[in-house]
Protein backbone atom coordinates (compact mmCIF):
# COMPACT_ATOMS: atom_id res chain seq x y z
CA UNK A 1 0.00 0.00 0.00
CA UNK A 2 2.74 2.47 0.90
CA UNK A 3 4.88 1.26 -1.98
CA UNK A 4 7.41 3.88 -2.99
CA UNK A 5 6.56 5.99 0.03
CA UNK A 6 8.67 7.13 2.92
CA UNK A 7 6.71 7.56 6.12
CA UNK A 8 8.15 9.21 9.20
CA UNK A 9 6.09 9.03 12.35
CA UNK A 10 6.76 10.67 15.65
CA UNK A 11 3.97 10.74 18.18
CA UNK A 12 1.06 12.61 16.64
CA UNK A 13 3.14 13.83 13.71
CA UNK A 14 3.55 11.92 10.52
CA UNK A 15 5.12 12.93 7.25
CA UNK A 16 4.78 10.97 4.04
CA UNK A 17 6.83 11.45 0.93
CA UNK A 18 7.40 9.58 -2.27
CA UNK A 19 11.05 8.71 -2.20
CA UNK A 20 11.49 9.22 -5.93
CA UNK A 21 10.08 12.73 -5.61
CA UNK A 22 12.28 13.42 -2.59
CA UNK A 23 15.29 12.30 -4.61
CA UNK A 24 14.30 14.50 -7.54
CA UNK A 25 13.80 17.55 -5.34
CA UNK A 26 17.10 16.98 -3.56
CA UNK A 27 18.76 16.75 -6.97
CA UNK A 28 17.17 20.05 -7.99
CA UNK A 29 18.41 21.72 -4.80
CA UNK A 30 21.93 20.44 -5.40
CA UNK A 31 21.82 21.65 -9.00
CA UNK A 32 20.66 25.06 -7.82
CA UNK A 33 23.53 25.30 -5.33
CA UNK A 34 26.09 24.33 -7.95
CA UNK A 35 24.70 26.80 -10.45
CA UNK A 36 24.68 29.59 -7.86
CA UNK A 37 28.30 28.82 -6.95
CA UNK A 38 29.31 28.82 -10.59
CA UNK A 39 27.45 32.08 -11.21
CA UNK A 40 29.54 33.70 -8.48
CA UNK A 41 32.75 32.89 -10.35
CA UNK A 42 31.81 34.13 -13.82
CA UNK A 43 31.33 37.63 -15.10
CA UNK A 44 33.23 40.48 -16.69
CA UNK A 45 35.90 39.83 -14.09
CA UNK A 46 36.48 36.10 -13.55
CA UNK A 47 37.06 35.10 -9.95
CA UNK A 48 38.23 31.54 -9.37
CA UNK A 49 36.50 29.05 -7.12
CA UNK A 50 39.15 29.12 -4.39
CA UNK A 51 38.77 32.87 -4.04
CA UNK A 52 35.00 32.57 -3.83
CA UNK A 53 35.27 29.92 -1.12
CA UNK A 54 37.84 32.04 0.72
CA UNK A 55 35.50 35.00 0.56
CA UNK A 56 32.52 32.99 1.80
CA UNK A 57 34.31 31.19 4.62
CA UNK A 58 37.02 33.58 5.80
CA UNK A 59 35.76 36.91 4.41
CA UNK A 60 39.33 37.35 3.25
CA UNK A 61 39.69 38.63 -0.28
CA UNK A 62 41.00 41.71 -2.08
CA UNK A 63 38.74 44.76 -1.78
CA UNK A 64 37.77 44.84 -5.47
CA UNK A 65 36.84 41.18 -5.67
CA UNK A 66 35.03 41.32 -2.32
CA UNK A 67 33.07 44.32 -3.60
CA UNK A 68 32.18 42.56 -6.84
CA UNK A 69 31.09 39.42 -5.04
CA UNK A 70 29.40 40.98 -2.03
CA UNK A 71 27.72 44.00 -3.55
CA UNK A 72 27.02 42.92 -7.11
CA UNK A 73 27.08 39.20 -7.84
CA UNK A 74 25.74 37.75 -4.61
CA UNK A 75 22.65 39.97 -4.35
CA UNK A 76 22.04 39.56 -8.07
CA UNK A 77 22.17 35.78 -7.81
CA UNK A 78 19.96 35.76 -4.71
CA UNK A 79 17.45 38.05 -6.37
CA UNK A 80 17.39 35.97 -9.55
CA UNK A 81 16.63 32.83 -7.54
CA UNK A 82 14.03 34.56 -5.39
CA UNK A 83 12.24 36.13 -8.34
CA UNK A 84 12.23 32.82 -10.20
CA UNK A 85 10.91 30.97 -7.17
CA UNK A 86 8.18 33.56 -6.58
CA UNK A 87 6.93 33.53 -10.15
CA UNK A 88 7.09 29.76 -10.38
CA UNK A 89 5.24 29.25 -7.09
CA UNK A 90 2.53 31.70 -8.14
CA UNK A 91 2.26 29.98 -11.53
CA UNK A 92 2.19 26.47 -10.12
CA UNK A 93 -0.50 27.15 -7.56
CA UNK A 94 -2.65 29.17 -9.99
CA UNK A 95 -2.39 26.46 -12.63
CA UNK A 96 -3.39 23.79 -10.14
CA UNK A 97 -6.24 25.78 -8.72
CA UNK A 98 -7.78 26.84 -12.01
CA UNK A 99 -7.14 23.38 -13.52
CA UNK A 100 -5.68 25.28 -16.41
CA UNK A 101 -2.14 24.74 -17.62
CA UNK A 102 -2.16 28.18 -19.25
CA UNK A 103 -2.94 30.11 -16.10
CA UNK A 104 0.32 32.00 -15.90
CA UNK A 105 -0.18 34.75 -13.33
CA UNK A 106 0.78 37.26 -15.99
CA UNK A 107 -2.55 36.35 -17.55
CA UNK A 108 -4.23 37.57 -14.40
CA UNK A 109 -3.27 41.18 -15.09
CA UNK A 110 -1.10 41.37 -11.98
CA UNK A 111 2.17 41.74 -13.81
CA UNK A 112 0.73 44.43 -16.07
CA UNK A 113 -0.80 46.30 -13.15
CA UNK A 114 2.46 46.40 -11.27
CA UNK A 115 4.39 47.33 -14.43
CA UNK A 116 1.97 50.13 -15.28
CA UNK A 117 2.27 51.75 -11.85
CA UNK A 118 6.06 51.49 -11.77
CA UNK A 119 6.53 52.78 -15.32
CA UNK A 120 4.19 55.67 -14.59
CA UNK A 121 6.31 56.51 -11.60
CA UNK A 122 9.54 56.09 -13.61
CA UNK A 123 8.26 58.52 -16.22
CA UNK A 124 6.81 61.05 -13.83
CA UNK A 125 9.82 61.22 -11.55
CA UNK A 126 12.88 59.36 -12.87
CA UNK A 127 14.76 60.30 -9.74
CA UNK A 128 12.50 58.47 -7.36
CA UNK A 129 14.25 56.27 -4.82
CA UNK A 130 14.53 52.59 -5.70
CA UNK A 131 12.91 51.60 -2.44
CA UNK A 132 9.66 53.12 -3.62
CA UNK A 133 9.33 50.70 -6.55
CA UNK A 134 8.21 47.62 -4.63
CA UNK A 135 5.59 49.62 -2.77
CA UNK A 136 4.21 51.17 -5.93
CA UNK A 137 4.45 47.89 -7.83
CA UNK A 138 2.67 46.05 -5.08
CA UNK A 139 -0.09 48.66 -5.09
CA UNK A 140 -0.51 48.31 -8.86
CA UNK A 141 -0.41 44.53 -8.84
CA UNK A 142 -2.85 44.23 -5.97
CA UNK A 143 -5.16 46.81 -7.56
CA UNK A 144 -5.21 44.78 -10.79
CA UNK A 145 -5.62 41.53 -8.85
CA UNK A 146 -8.48 42.97 -6.82
CA UNK A 147 -10.13 44.32 -9.96
CA UNK A 148 -9.98 40.83 -11.51
CA UNK A 149 -11.26 39.25 -8.31
CA UNK A 150 -14.13 41.74 -8.03
CA UNK A 151 -15.21 41.48 -11.65
CA UNK A 152 -15.08 37.69 -11.65
CA UNK A 153 -16.54 37.31 -8.18
CA UNK A 154 -18.33 34.01 -7.86
CA UNK A 155 -17.43 33.04 -11.42
CA UNK A 156 -15.88 29.75 -12.46
CA UNK A 157 -12.08 29.37 -12.53
CA UNK A 158 -12.17 29.60 -16.31
CA UNK A 159 -14.06 32.89 -16.25
CA UNK A 160 -11.64 34.10 -13.63
CA UNK A 161 -8.72 33.50 -15.97
CA UNK A 162 -10.59 35.05 -18.90
CA UNK A 163 -11.33 38.17 -16.86
CA UNK A 164 -7.68 38.38 -15.89
CA UNK A 165 -6.76 38.08 -19.54
CA UNK A 166 -9.06 40.96 -20.51
CA UNK A 167 -7.88 43.22 -17.74
CA UNK A 168 -4.26 42.47 -18.49
CA UNK A 169 -4.77 43.52 -22.12
CA UNK A 170 -6.44 46.75 -21.00
CA UNK A 171 -3.51 47.47 -18.74
CA UNK A 172 -0.88 46.73 -21.36
CA UNK A 173 -2.56 49.04 -23.85
CA UNK A 174 -2.51 51.75 -21.19
CA UNK A 175 1.18 50.97 -20.75
CA UNK A 176 1.78 51.46 -24.48
CA UNK A 177 0.00 54.81 -24.40
CA UNK A 178 2.17 55.82 -21.47
CA UNK A 179 5.36 54.74 -23.22
CA UNK A 180 4.40 56.44 -26.48
CA UNK A 181 4.12 59.75 -24.68
CA UNK A 182 7.46 59.46 -22.90
CA UNK A 183 10.69 61.18 -23.84
CA UNK A 184 13.54 59.10 -25.21
CA UNK A 185 15.83 58.79 -22.21
CA UNK A 186 13.20 57.78 -19.72
CA UNK A 187 11.66 55.55 -22.39
CA UNK A 188 14.91 53.62 -22.66
CA UNK A 189 15.22 53.02 -18.94
CA UNK A 190 11.55 52.09 -18.72
CA UNK A 191 11.85 49.61 -21.59
CA UNK A 192 14.95 48.05 -20.09
CA UNK A 193 13.20 47.65 -16.78
CA UNK A 194 10.07 46.28 -18.45
CA UNK A 195 12.13 43.58 -20.15
CA UNK A 196 13.05 42.33 -16.71
CA UNK A 197 16.46 43.27 -15.51
CA UNK A 198 18.53 42.24 -12.53
CA UNK A 199 21.04 45.01 -13.16
CA UNK A 200 19.88 47.03 -10.19
CA UNK A 201 19.93 44.13 -7.73
CA UNK A 202 21.03 45.04 -4.24
CA UNK A 203 20.58 43.55 -0.81
CA UNK A 204 17.59 45.75 -0.13
CA UNK A 205 15.59 44.31 -3.01
CA UNK A 206 16.74 40.83 -1.92
CA UNK A 207 15.32 41.48 1.54
CA UNK A 208 12.03 42.75 0.14
CA UNK A 209 11.69 39.74 -2.17
CA UNK A 210 12.63 37.32 0.62
CA UNK A 211 10.05 38.74 3.02
CA UNK A 212 7.29 38.52 0.40
CA UNK A 213 8.28 34.99 -0.60
CA UNK A 214 8.43 33.74 2.98
CA UNK A 215 5.09 35.26 3.90
CA UNK A 216 3.10 34.32 0.78
CA UNK A 217 4.87 30.97 0.51
CA UNK A 218 3.96 30.06 4.09
CA UNK A 219 0.31 30.79 3.49
CA UNK A 220 0.27 28.84 0.22
CA UNK A 221 2.01 25.81 1.74
CA UNK A 222 -0.15 25.92 4.84
CA UNK A 223 -3.27 25.82 2.67
CA UNK A 224 -1.83 23.40 0.09
CA UNK A 225 -3.60 20.40 1.55
CA UNK A 226 -6.90 22.21 1.02
CA UNK A 227 -5.90 23.40 -2.44
CA UNK A 228 -4.94 19.86 -3.40
CA UNK A 229 -8.58 18.72 -3.15
CA UNK A 230 -9.65 21.11 -5.90
CA UNK A 231 -9.14 18.43 -8.54
CA UNK A 232 -12.03 16.35 -7.15
CA UNK A 233 -14.61 19.04 -7.71
CA UNK A 234 -16.19 21.46 -5.29
CA UNK A 235 -18.71 19.02 -3.85
CA UNK A 236 -16.19 16.41 -2.75
CA UNK A 237 -13.76 19.07 -1.49
CA UNK A 238 -16.50 20.64 0.63
CA UNK A 239 -17.69 17.33 2.00
CA UNK A 240 -14.12 16.45 2.97
CA UNK A 241 -14.02 19.61 5.03
CA UNK A 242 -12.36 22.42 3.10
CA UNK A 243 -14.06 25.72 3.62
CA UNK A 244 -15.97 26.87 0.57
CA UNK A 245 -13.95 29.89 -0.48
CA UNK A 246 -11.58 31.00 2.28
CA UNK A 247 -8.50 28.89 1.46
CA UNK A 248 -8.96 29.37 -2.28
CA UNK A 249 -9.19 33.13 -1.99
CA UNK A 250 -6.21 33.40 0.35
CA UNK A 251 -4.12 31.23 -1.95
CA UNK A 252 -4.95 33.33 -5.00
CA UNK A 253 -4.25 36.56 -3.11
CA UNK A 254 -0.85 35.21 -2.14
CA UNK A 255 -0.12 34.30 -5.76
CA UNK A 256 -0.97 37.90 -6.69
CA UNK A 257 1.32 39.15 -3.94
CA UNK A 258 4.17 36.98 -5.22
CA UNK A 259 3.84 38.23 -8.79
CA UNK A 260 3.48 41.86 -7.78
CA UNK A 261 6.48 41.50 -5.47
CA UNK A 262 8.69 39.97 -8.13
CA UNK A 263 7.66 42.54 -10.75
CA UNK A 264 8.48 45.36 -8.39
CA UNK A 265 12.01 44.11 -7.75
CA UNK A 266 13.04 42.72 -11.15
CA UNK A 267 10.50 43.95 -13.68
CA UNK A 268 8.59 41.81 -16.13
CA UNK A 269 10.00 38.30 -16.36
CA UNK A 270 7.81 36.22 -18.63
CA UNK A 271 7.61 32.49 -19.09
CA UNK A 272 8.77 31.41 -15.62
CA UNK A 273 5.33 31.11 -14.07
CA UNK A 274 4.07 29.32 -17.15
CA UNK A 275 6.93 26.97 -17.84
CA UNK A 276 8.36 25.99 -14.44
CA UNK A 277 5.26 24.02 -13.34
CA UNK A 278 5.24 22.25 -16.71
CA UNK A 279 8.86 21.20 -16.29
CA UNK A 280 8.05 20.04 -12.75
CA UNK A 281 5.52 17.64 -14.27
CA UNK A 282 8.39 15.74 -15.86
CA UNK A 283 9.65 14.79 -12.42
CA UNK A 284 8.33 11.69 -10.66
CA UNK A 285 4.75 12.17 -9.53
CA UNK A 286 4.36 13.93 -6.21
CA UNK A 287 1.90 15.65 -3.92
CA UNK A 288 0.91 19.27 -4.51
CA UNK A 289 3.34 20.45 -1.85
CA UNK A 290 6.14 18.55 -3.54
CA UNK A 291 5.14 19.94 -6.92
CA UNK A 292 5.23 23.48 -5.53
CA UNK A 293 8.70 22.98 -4.06
CA UNK A 294 9.97 21.51 -7.32
CA UNK A 295 8.43 24.34 -9.37
CA UNK A 296 10.04 26.94 -7.14
CA UNK A 297 13.47 25.42 -7.58
CA UNK A 298 13.00 25.07 -11.33
CA UNK A 299 11.90 28.71 -11.52
CA UNK A 300 14.98 29.76 -9.55
CA UNK A 301 17.20 27.67 -11.82
CA UNK A 302 15.66 29.15 -14.96
CA UNK A 303 16.01 32.78 -13.95
CA UNK A 304 19.49 32.29 -12.52
CA UNK A 305 20.66 30.47 -15.64
CA UNK A 306 19.08 33.08 -17.92
CA UNK A 307 20.60 35.98 -16.02
CA UNK A 308 24.04 34.39 -15.75
CA UNK A 309 24.08 33.57 -19.46
CA UNK A 310 22.77 37.04 -20.25
CA UNK A 311 25.64 38.70 -18.44
CA UNK A 312 28.40 36.37 -19.73
CA UNK A 313 27.65 35.36 -23.32
CA UNK A 314 27.99 38.81 -24.86
CA UNK A 315 30.16 40.27 -22.09
CA UNK A 316 30.85 43.09 -21.53
CA UNK A 317 27.36 43.75 -22.95
CA UNK A 318 24.75 42.31 -20.60
CA UNK A 319 21.34 41.22 -21.78
CA UNK A 320 18.41 41.86 -19.45
CA UNK A 321 17.38 38.58 -17.80
CA UNK A 322 13.91 38.87 -19.30
CA UNK A 323 15.32 38.73 -22.82
CA UNK A 324 17.65 35.78 -22.29
CA UNK A 325 14.87 34.07 -20.39
CA UNK A 326 12.53 34.48 -23.35
CA UNK A 327 15.31 33.24 -25.63
CA UNK A 328 15.71 30.11 -23.50
CA UNK A 329 12.11 29.78 -22.38
CA UNK A 330 10.28 29.98 -25.68
CA UNK A 331 12.18 27.14 -27.40
CA UNK A 332 12.05 25.15 -24.15
CA UNK A 333 8.28 25.51 -24.00
CA UNK A 334 7.93 24.32 -27.59
CA UNK A 335 10.28 21.43 -26.86
CA UNK A 336 8.30 20.46 -23.77
CA UNK A 337 5.03 20.45 -25.66
CA UNK A 338 6.63 18.37 -28.38
CA UNK A 339 8.07 15.89 -25.89
CA UNK A 340 4.73 15.51 -24.17
CA UNK A 341 2.72 15.28 -27.37
CA UNK A 342 1.85 11.64 -26.78
CA UNK A 343 2.17 11.52 -23.02
CA UNK A 344 -1.35 12.64 -22.31
CA UNK A 345 -2.36 9.25 -20.94
CA UNK A 346 0.57 8.46 -18.71
CA UNK A 347 2.33 11.39 -17.09
CA UNK A 348 4.08 9.27 -14.52
Amino acid at each position, binding site marked *: *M*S*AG*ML*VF*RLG*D*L*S*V*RMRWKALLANTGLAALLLVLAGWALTVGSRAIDVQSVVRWMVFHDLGATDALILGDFRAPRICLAMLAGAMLALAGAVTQYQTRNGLADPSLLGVREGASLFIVALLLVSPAMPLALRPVVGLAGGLAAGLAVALVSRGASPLKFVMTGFGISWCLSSMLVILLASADLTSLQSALLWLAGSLQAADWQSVRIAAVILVFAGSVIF*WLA*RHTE*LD*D*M*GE*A*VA*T*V*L*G*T*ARSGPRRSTLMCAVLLVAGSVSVVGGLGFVGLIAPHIARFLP*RQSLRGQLVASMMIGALLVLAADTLGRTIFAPVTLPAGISLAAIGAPLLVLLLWLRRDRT*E*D*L*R
Partner: protein
Amino acid sequence: MRRINTIERPFCVLPDARRAQEVLASKLSATRLAAGFGRRIVIRDVDLAIEPGCLTVLLGPNGSGKSTLLSTLARLLPPRQGSVLLDGADISRRPTLEVARKLGLLPQQPPVPEGLTVAELVGRGRFPHQGFLRHWSRRDEAAVDEAMALTGISHLATTDVEALSGGQRQRVWISMVLAQKTPLLLLDEPTTFLDIANQVAILTLLRRLVRHHGRTIVCVLHDLNMALQYADRFVFVKDGVIKHTVADPKQCTGAIIEEVFDTSAIMVPHPQTGLPVFLPRYPDAQGAPA
Protein backbone atom coordinates in the same frame (compact mmCIF):
# COMPACT_ATOMS: atom_id res chain seq x y z
CA MET B 1 -17.09 9.28 19.02
CA ARG B 2 -20.10 8.51 21.18
CA ARG B 3 -21.57 5.08 20.69
CA ILE B 4 -24.97 3.90 21.69
CA ASN B 5 -26.25 0.45 22.28
CA THR B 6 -28.54 -1.09 19.71
CA ILE B 7 -31.12 -1.82 22.35
CA GLU B 8 -31.70 1.88 22.90
CA ARG B 9 -31.93 2.38 19.18
CA PRO B 10 -35.27 3.48 17.80
CA PHE B 11 -37.31 0.87 16.06
CA CYS B 12 -36.43 0.10 12.50
CA VAL B 13 -37.62 -2.87 10.50
CA LEU B 14 -34.78 -5.12 9.43
CA PRO B 15 -35.37 -8.21 7.32
CA ASP B 16 -32.17 -9.85 8.61
CA ALA B 17 -31.84 -11.22 12.08
CA ARG B 18 -28.20 -10.22 12.39
CA ARG B 19 -27.52 -6.72 13.54
CA ALA B 20 -24.48 -4.63 14.25
CA GLN B 21 -23.17 -4.84 17.77
CA GLU B 22 -23.37 -1.12 18.04
CA VAL B 23 -24.39 1.80 15.92
CA LEU B 24 -22.05 4.74 15.45
CA ALA B 25 -24.36 7.42 16.65
CA SER B 26 -24.83 10.55 14.63
CA LYS B 27 -28.25 11.88 14.05
CA LEU B 28 -29.18 13.80 10.98
CA SER B 29 -32.48 15.54 10.60
CA ALA B 30 -34.13 18.35 8.70
CA THR B 31 -36.89 20.62 9.85
CA ARG B 32 -39.11 22.74 7.61
CA LEU B 33 -36.35 22.60 5.02
CA ALA B 34 -36.50 24.52 1.75
CA ALA B 35 -33.63 24.79 -0.71
CA GLY B 36 -32.94 25.45 -4.37
CA PHE B 37 -30.74 27.07 -6.96
CA GLY B 38 -30.95 30.77 -7.78
CA ARG B 39 -34.57 31.79 -7.64
CA ARG B 40 -35.90 28.30 -8.08
CA ILE B 41 -36.99 26.53 -4.93
CA VAL B 42 -36.54 22.81 -5.54
CA ILE B 43 -37.49 21.27 -2.21
CA ARG B 44 -39.77 22.68 0.44
CA ASP B 45 -41.35 21.80 3.73
CA VAL B 46 -39.11 18.83 4.23
CA ASP B 47 -39.24 17.30 7.68
CA LEU B 48 -37.03 14.26 7.85
CA ALA B 49 -35.23 12.35 10.57
CA ILE B 50 -32.67 9.85 9.35
CA GLU B 51 -32.93 6.66 11.37
CA PRO B 52 -29.51 5.74 12.77
CA GLY B 53 -28.26 2.30 11.76
CA CYS B 54 -30.53 2.00 8.75
CA LEU B 55 -30.15 2.10 5.00
CA THR B 56 -32.56 4.79 3.86
CA VAL B 57 -33.24 5.37 0.18
CA LEU B 58 -34.66 8.46 -1.43
CA LEU B 59 -36.91 7.49 -4.31
CA GLY B 60 -38.78 9.62 -6.79
CA PRO B 61 -39.04 10.63 -10.41
CA ASN B 62 -36.29 12.53 -12.23
CA GLY B 63 -36.14 16.14 -11.12
CA SER B 64 -38.16 15.52 -7.98
CA GLY B 65 -35.46 17.04 -5.77
CA LYS B 66 -33.79 13.92 -4.34
CA SER B 67 -30.25 15.06 -5.13
CA THR B 68 -31.03 18.59 -3.96
CA LEU B 69 -32.28 17.17 -0.68
CA LEU B 70 -29.13 15.08 -0.32
CA SER B 71 -26.89 18.07 -1.11
CA THR B 72 -28.70 20.21 1.41
CA LEU B 73 -28.40 17.51 4.06
CA ALA B 74 -24.65 17.44 3.37
CA ARG B 75 -24.37 21.28 3.67
CA LEU B 76 -23.43 21.65 -0.01
CA LEU B 77 -26.48 23.82 -0.55
CA PRO B 78 -27.49 26.43 2.01
CA PRO B 79 -31.13 26.03 3.08
CA ARG B 80 -33.54 28.83 2.17
CA GLN B 81 -35.68 28.01 5.13
CA GLY B 82 -35.47 25.66 8.03
CA SER B 83 -32.30 23.90 9.01
CA VAL B 84 -30.37 20.68 8.90
CA LEU B 85 -29.42 19.37 12.32
CA LEU B 86 -26.45 17.12 12.91
CA ASP B 87 -26.55 15.71 16.43
CA GLY B 88 -28.93 18.46 17.41
CA ALA B 89 -26.83 21.39 16.15
CA ASP B 90 -27.29 23.40 12.97
CA ILE B 91 -24.94 21.85 10.43
CA SER B 92 -24.10 25.17 8.77
CA ARG B 93 -22.86 26.63 12.05
CA ARG B 94 -20.55 23.75 12.92
CA PRO B 95 -16.87 23.77 11.90
CA THR B 96 -16.73 22.15 8.48
CA LEU B 97 -13.86 19.80 9.43
CA GLU B 98 -15.82 18.55 12.41
CA VAL B 99 -18.82 17.85 10.19
CA ALA B 100 -16.51 16.08 7.73
CA ARG B 101 -15.60 13.59 10.45
CA LYS B 102 -19.25 12.72 10.95
CA LEU B 103 -20.81 12.94 7.53
CA GLY B 104 -19.51 11.79 4.17
CA LEU B 105 -21.11 12.22 0.76
CA LEU B 106 -20.46 10.78 -2.64
CA PRO B 107 -21.89 13.06 -5.33
CA GLN B 108 -23.09 11.83 -8.71
CA GLN B 109 -20.09 11.27 -10.95
CA PRO B 110 -17.42 13.42 -9.33
CA PRO B 111 -14.58 14.47 -11.65
CA VAL B 112 -11.74 11.93 -11.64
CA PRO B 113 -8.45 13.60 -10.70
CA GLU B 114 -5.56 13.09 -13.08
CA GLY B 115 -2.58 11.00 -12.19
CA LEU B 116 -3.72 9.46 -8.92
CA THR B 117 -3.49 5.81 -7.94
CA VAL B 118 -6.41 4.05 -6.32
CA ALA B 119 -4.75 4.11 -2.89
CA GLU B 120 -4.02 7.81 -3.23
CA LEU B 121 -7.57 8.69 -4.16
CA VAL B 122 -8.93 6.58 -1.30
CA GLY B 123 -6.39 8.29 0.96
CA ARG B 124 -7.95 11.66 0.09
CA GLY B 125 -10.86 10.55 2.24
CA ARG B 126 -8.61 10.91 5.28
CA PHE B 127 -8.41 14.67 4.79
CA PRO B 128 -10.54 15.67 7.81
CA HIS B 129 -8.35 13.50 10.04
CA GLN B 130 -5.06 14.87 8.75
CA GLY B 131 -3.15 18.08 9.32
CA PHE B 132 -0.22 20.16 8.12
CA LEU B 133 2.25 17.77 9.75
CA ARG B 134 -0.08 14.83 10.09
CA HIS B 135 0.09 13.32 6.62
CA TRP B 136 -0.26 9.65 7.26
CA SER B 137 -0.88 8.25 10.72
CA ARG B 138 -1.26 4.55 11.41
CA ARG B 139 -4.99 5.15 11.68
CA ASP B 140 -5.03 6.72 8.20
CA GLU B 141 -3.23 3.72 6.81
CA ALA B 142 -5.54 1.25 8.54
CA ALA B 143 -8.67 3.12 7.42
CA VAL B 144 -7.55 3.17 3.79
CA ASP B 145 -6.59 -0.51 3.84
CA GLU B 146 -9.91 -1.44 5.41
CA ALA B 147 -11.91 0.71 2.99
CA MET B 148 -10.22 -0.89 -0.02
CA ALA B 149 -10.69 -4.37 1.41
CA LEU B 150 -14.40 -3.75 2.00
CA THR B 151 -15.04 -2.81 -1.60
CA GLY B 152 -12.70 -5.51 -2.90
CA ILE B 153 -10.19 -3.22 -4.61
CA SER B 154 -7.08 -3.92 -2.51
CA HIS B 155 -5.41 -5.54 -5.50
CA LEU B 156 -5.86 -2.32 -7.51
CA ALA B 157 -4.13 -0.11 -4.91
CA THR B 158 -1.29 0.98 -7.18
CA THR B 159 -3.34 1.20 -10.38
CA ASP B 160 -4.16 4.56 -11.92
CA VAL B 161 -7.77 5.53 -11.30
CA GLU B 162 -8.10 6.73 -14.88
CA ALA B 163 -7.37 3.22 -16.13
CA LEU B 164 -10.32 1.64 -14.31
CA SER B 165 -13.75 0.63 -15.59
CA GLY B 166 -16.89 2.40 -14.41
CA GLY B 167 -17.73 -0.26 -11.84
CA GLN B 168 -14.24 -0.32 -10.37
CA ARG B 169 -14.12 3.45 -10.31
CA GLN B 170 -17.37 3.58 -8.36
CA ARG B 171 -15.89 1.19 -5.81
CA VAL B 172 -12.87 3.46 -5.50
CA TRP B 173 -15.10 6.45 -4.79
CA ILE B 174 -17.09 4.49 -2.25
CA SER B 175 -13.81 3.42 -0.63
CA MET B 176 -12.84 7.05 -0.41
CA VAL B 177 -15.96 8.00 1.55
CA LEU B 178 -15.54 4.87 3.66
CA ALA B 179 -11.96 5.86 4.51
CA GLN B 180 -13.42 9.09 5.86
CA LYS B 181 -14.79 6.88 8.66
CA THR B 182 -17.96 8.86 9.13
CA PRO B 183 -20.94 7.37 10.94
CA LEU B 184 -23.20 8.96 8.32
CA LEU B 185 -22.85 8.26 4.62
CA LEU B 186 -24.84 9.97 1.89
CA LEU B 187 -24.59 8.51 -1.60
CA ASP B 188 -26.08 10.05 -4.73
CA GLU B 189 -26.99 7.32 -7.20
CA PRO B 190 -24.04 5.03 -6.47
CA THR B 191 -25.30 2.31 -8.82
CA THR B 192 -26.38 4.35 -11.84
CA PHE B 193 -24.59 3.31 -15.06
CA LEU B 194 -23.43 0.04 -13.49
CA ASP B 195 -24.27 -3.45 -14.70
CA ILE B 196 -26.43 -5.70 -12.56
CA ALA B 197 -23.52 -7.57 -10.97
CA ASN B 198 -21.87 -4.33 -9.87
CA GLN B 199 -25.21 -2.99 -8.62
CA VAL B 200 -25.73 -6.09 -6.51
CA ALA B 201 -22.16 -5.92 -5.19
CA ILE B 202 -22.47 -2.29 -4.18
CA LEU B 203 -25.90 -2.62 -2.58
CA THR B 204 -24.76 -5.73 -0.70
CA LEU B 205 -21.79 -3.75 0.55
CA LEU B 206 -24.01 -0.88 1.67
CA ARG B 207 -26.21 -3.28 3.59
CA ARG B 208 -23.19 -4.89 5.19
CA LEU B 209 -21.91 -1.49 6.25
CA VAL B 210 -25.21 -0.78 7.93
CA ARG B 211 -25.60 -4.20 9.56
CA HIS B 212 -22.06 -5.00 10.62
CA HIS B 213 -20.23 -1.68 10.74
CA GLY B 214 -22.84 0.46 12.41
CA ARG B 215 -23.02 3.01 9.61
CA THR B 216 -26.08 5.03 8.75
CA ILE B 217 -26.56 5.36 5.01
CA VAL B 218 -28.83 7.60 2.96
CA CYS B 219 -28.83 6.84 -0.69
CA VAL B 220 -30.54 8.15 -3.82
CA LEU B 221 -31.42 5.24 -6.08
CA HIS B 222 -33.21 5.12 -9.38
CA ASP B 223 -33.79 1.42 -9.52
CA LEU B 224 -36.94 1.01 -7.47
CA ASN B 225 -36.77 -2.79 -7.40
CA MET B 226 -33.14 -2.91 -6.32
CA ALA B 227 -33.91 -0.40 -3.60
CA LEU B 228 -36.80 -2.53 -2.34
CA GLN B 229 -34.57 -5.59 -2.04
CA TYR B 230 -31.84 -3.92 -0.02
CA ALA B 231 -33.02 -0.86 1.88
CA ASP B 232 -34.67 -0.53 5.28
CA ARG B 233 -36.51 2.74 4.90
CA PHE B 234 -37.97 4.44 1.88
CA VAL B 235 -38.55 8.14 1.45
CA PHE B 236 -40.65 9.00 -1.59
CA VAL B 237 -40.05 12.47 -2.96
CA LYS B 238 -42.17 14.15 -5.60
CA ASP B 239 -42.15 17.77 -6.78
CA GLY B 240 -39.82 18.76 -3.95
CA VAL B 241 -41.92 17.45 -1.09
CA ILE B 242 -41.84 14.17 0.82
CA LYS B 243 -44.96 12.20 -0.13
CA HIS B 244 -44.44 9.05 1.89
CA THR B 245 -41.99 7.62 4.37
CA VAL B 246 -42.17 3.86 4.59
CA ALA B 247 -40.30 1.75 7.15
CA ASP B 248 -40.90 -1.65 5.56
CA PRO B 249 -40.52 -2.61 1.91
CA LYS B 250 -43.68 -4.68 2.14
CA GLN B 251 -45.64 -1.52 2.85
CA CYS B 252 -44.65 -0.10 -0.51
CA THR B 253 -47.86 -0.56 -2.43
CA GLY B 254 -48.77 -0.10 -6.04
CA ALA B 255 -50.83 2.92 -4.98
CA ILE B 256 -47.75 4.69 -3.59
CA ILE B 257 -45.72 3.90 -6.70
CA GLU B 258 -48.52 5.10 -8.93
CA GLU B 259 -48.91 8.33 -6.99
CA VAL B 260 -45.21 9.12 -6.89
CA PHE B 261 -44.13 8.02 -10.35
CA ASP B 262 -47.36 8.73 -12.25
CA THR B 263 -47.23 5.32 -13.78
CA SER B 264 -49.24 2.23 -13.29
CA ALA B 265 -47.41 -0.77 -11.86
CA ILE B 266 -48.08 -4.35 -10.86
CA MET B 267 -46.56 -5.69 -7.67
CA VAL B 268 -45.19 -9.23 -7.56
CA PRO B 269 -43.31 -10.73 -4.64
CA HIS B 270 -39.69 -11.76 -5.16
CA PRO B 271 -39.75 -15.58 -5.35
CA GLN B 272 -37.03 -15.94 -2.70
CA THR B 273 -37.50 -13.06 -0.31
CA GLY B 274 -41.14 -12.18 -0.78
CA LEU B 275 -40.15 -8.54 -1.05
CA PRO B 276 -42.13 -6.54 -3.59
CA VAL B 277 -40.98 -6.12 -7.18
CA PHE B 278 -42.81 -3.68 -9.43
CA LEU B 279 -43.40 -4.27 -13.11
CA PRO B 280 -45.02 -1.88 -15.56
CA ARG B 281 -48.72 -2.38 -16.14
CA TYR B 282 -49.75 -2.14 -19.77
CA PRO B 283 -53.06 -0.68 -20.80
CA ASP B 284 -53.47 -3.40 -23.42
CA ALA B 285 -55.10 -6.44 -21.89
CA GLN B 286 -53.08 -8.74 -24.12
CA GLY B 287 -50.07 -7.75 -22.03
CA ALA B 288 -47.67 -6.95 -24.85
CA PRO B 289 -45.98 -3.56 -24.94
CA ALA B 290 -47.73 -1.51 -27.60
